[in-house]
């Protein structure tokens, strides 16, 4: 991220005005839709910073959150390309100040370090970390927040022996969206989604041959 900022300041020909955007996409629950959406970015050599895809509150409809860094002009075009896909219901894009977002992180640290050093306990407290598993040899903590906050806790825990760390993609709510829930629900009610048909034959060799 920092190199990119330096580059832009040195070379004024580079497109300026890049910033972090969160793209929200409602899609059908279809095999292959993830690929259809992701190639829209890879075709243009745009890196996806993080991506979350999960069922929305309405069964049959999935919601994607995709975070990339680009200009407003490029975003407009990307979102239109996404919406053009047959299995996409709707796509939006927002800057960071237009959304509320969170990322979840899990930290695995040696239990000894916490038991022995009061400082660690204080630290975890200070960052609002919550223990989700306590074992004899390790303890797993969870925090939820923005990237900078989780980064800071990693830094703070490092000296005490951080064993493993993972963070989720961003989940985001659009501030000025009024009533997506009711809209999506109404939509699904009017035109129910189709069932996803998966390959049921992968472990049924003989049955297939005698079909």
């Amino acid at each position, binding site marked *: 991220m920092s190199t990119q900022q330096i580059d832009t300041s040195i070379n004024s020909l580079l497109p300026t005005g890049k910033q972090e955007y969160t793209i929200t996409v409602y*899609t*059908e629950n279809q*095999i*292959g839709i993830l*690929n*259809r959406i992701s*190639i829209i970015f890879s*075709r243009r050599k745009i890196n996806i910073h993080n991506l979350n895809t999960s069922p929305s509150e309405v069964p049959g409809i999935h919601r994607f959150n995709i975070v990339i860094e680009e200009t407003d002009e490029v975003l*407009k*075009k990307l979102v*239109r*390309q996404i*919406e*053009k896909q*047959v*299995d*996409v*219901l709707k796509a939006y894009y927002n800057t960071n100040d237009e959304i509320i977002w969170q990322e979840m992180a899990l930290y695995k640290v040696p239990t000894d370090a916490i038991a022995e050093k009061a400082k660690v306990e204080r630290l975890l407290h200070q960052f609002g970390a919550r223990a989700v598993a306590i074992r004899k040899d390790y303890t797993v903590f969870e925090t939820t927040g923005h990237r900078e906050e989780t980064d800071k806790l990693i830094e703070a825990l490092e000296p005490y022996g951080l064993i493993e760390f993972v963070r989720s993609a961003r989940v985001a709510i659009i501030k000025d969206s009024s009533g997506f829930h009711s809209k999506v629900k109404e*939509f699904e009610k009017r*035109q129910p*989604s*189709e069932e996803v*048909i998966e*390959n*049921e*034959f*992968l*472990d*049924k*060799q003989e049955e*297939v*041959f005698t*079909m």
Partner: protein
Amino acid sequence: METLEITKEEIKQEPKNATNVTGSVALLEILLAEKVKTIFGYPGGAIMPIYDALYDYRDKLEHILVRHEQGSIHAAQGFARTSGEVGIVFATSGPGATNLVTGLADAMIDSTPLVCITGQVFAHLLGTDAFQETDVVNITTPVTKWNYQITDATEIPSVLAKAFYIARSGRPGPVLIDITKNAQIQKFDFEGYVPCNHIRSYRPKPIVRPEYLEAAAKLINEAKKPFVIFGQGVILGEAEKEFKAFIEKSGIPAAWTILGLSALSTDHPLNVGMLGMHGNYGPNVLTNECDVLIAVGMRFDDRVTGRLDKYAKQAKIIHLDIDPSEIDKNVKSTVPVWGDCKETLPMLTKLVDKKTHPEWLARFEDLKQKETETCFNKDLRPTSDTLSMGEVINLLNELTDGNAVIVSDVGQHQMVACRYAKFNQTRSNVTSGGLGTMGFGLPAAIGAKFGAPDRDVVAIIGDGGFQMTLQELGTIMQNDVNVKIIILNNEFLGMVRQWQELFNERRYSFTDIQSPDFVALAASYRIAGQRVSERDKLKDSLKQMLEHKGAYLLEVMVGKEHNVFPMVPQGCSVSEIRLS
């Protein structure tokens, strides 16, 4: 006894698709229900059950056996382009399917409606690197409007219905359906076919917003130098009449992209010619002089716009397109008009004033005069020893009177054919525009003939492109396809050679291509033909070709180092177009 009779009665009343058929039979019944008549295909292991079922449908479904799967898809494209119907392709898994990729990419960028059926290995073998297994759905995702893999026969009716609907609605495009072998042989209760006319996540046509049309009409009515540029959207939207009515009422000169060619007859007084890199002089220069530019069903390809930051900067731009993602993609519009031009054009025609623009039209005429002196005379009535491509097209126009379907391949001959061919009716120009696929011409001509069986189909192909798909001469032979093939042979990969001459100091790096004896080659396929290199024999040889019953190959030896001009060099503005 009695029960047996009743059963017979039932069979008589109900078509055999009533119950319990194989996936393959259901597929063919669906094709019949969709009024498919012609399939272009090539059999293979994973699609054998469908071909076995097809054996019983030979009297209802015409199957054209090609010589290579690329030939089948280009033929289906040619068919779709002349007929306006969905082209159908059958291919097997693995190499059969991957051979379709070029055609899919071509159909995707040129918005050609296709439904391609590929066989696939048994569902239980997916992901095991089975014989002729390839991940076709993922390979073709970027080059299809939609694709889907069927692993269970019960999916066939609804998926095929969606496939046809998606391929032909909105901005058309290719759809690929991959069917595993088990689904082809699996029996299921087929309760008849219900065509699809709605998919909840898919909006084929944007809602037309009248306020934008009003804004567009206001700009047009105030314009002094309005200019219409149109593309294939007019043909795909079947809006040729509506388009003609619009330009005739508003009196606005109109120029075309090569895929828009033939939507408006070439001798219409308001038709001012071709846009783009090798387009006509006037339309290119005046793009940068007009005050309102009205783009109809075209997508501002870089070969049309030249350098974007110097493209029509002085003009207000009105962009009519059915695909919202095309608006503002390359050129920012002042007034976007989303919608099907079949709907939007009549609305716009109603709002515009009846007008003529004689002075503005005279500007086009002036520049045409300049182009006549420098290019037309040299191309169409040359005095050189060698024949020119232009004079061949010119004589062909004379003999066909602009009634033929012209299929071109890619390269210099394509630009010459598009610049000079005369057209009286729509869906007459078949060429690979967006992808520029060499080898497209011959197979596309085969399909074009099936799509327009009552019309003369003339394929104009270069010596390079012809050698990319010449195996399809076998298809022409076996199916008695009456196509006329003109090879414009300059013994070079001419377009690349032209660039090497102009921009690489004549360093002719691997553009000097040798050819077989094309006439003898055709003869070996039992196709008549001759070679001509003299001017005084050219017209007669063209006549002979057109009058011949059945396919004919005419090889015309043309000047080796002729160039196509005018030309907008890459990286230049359209107004910097060069006449020599």
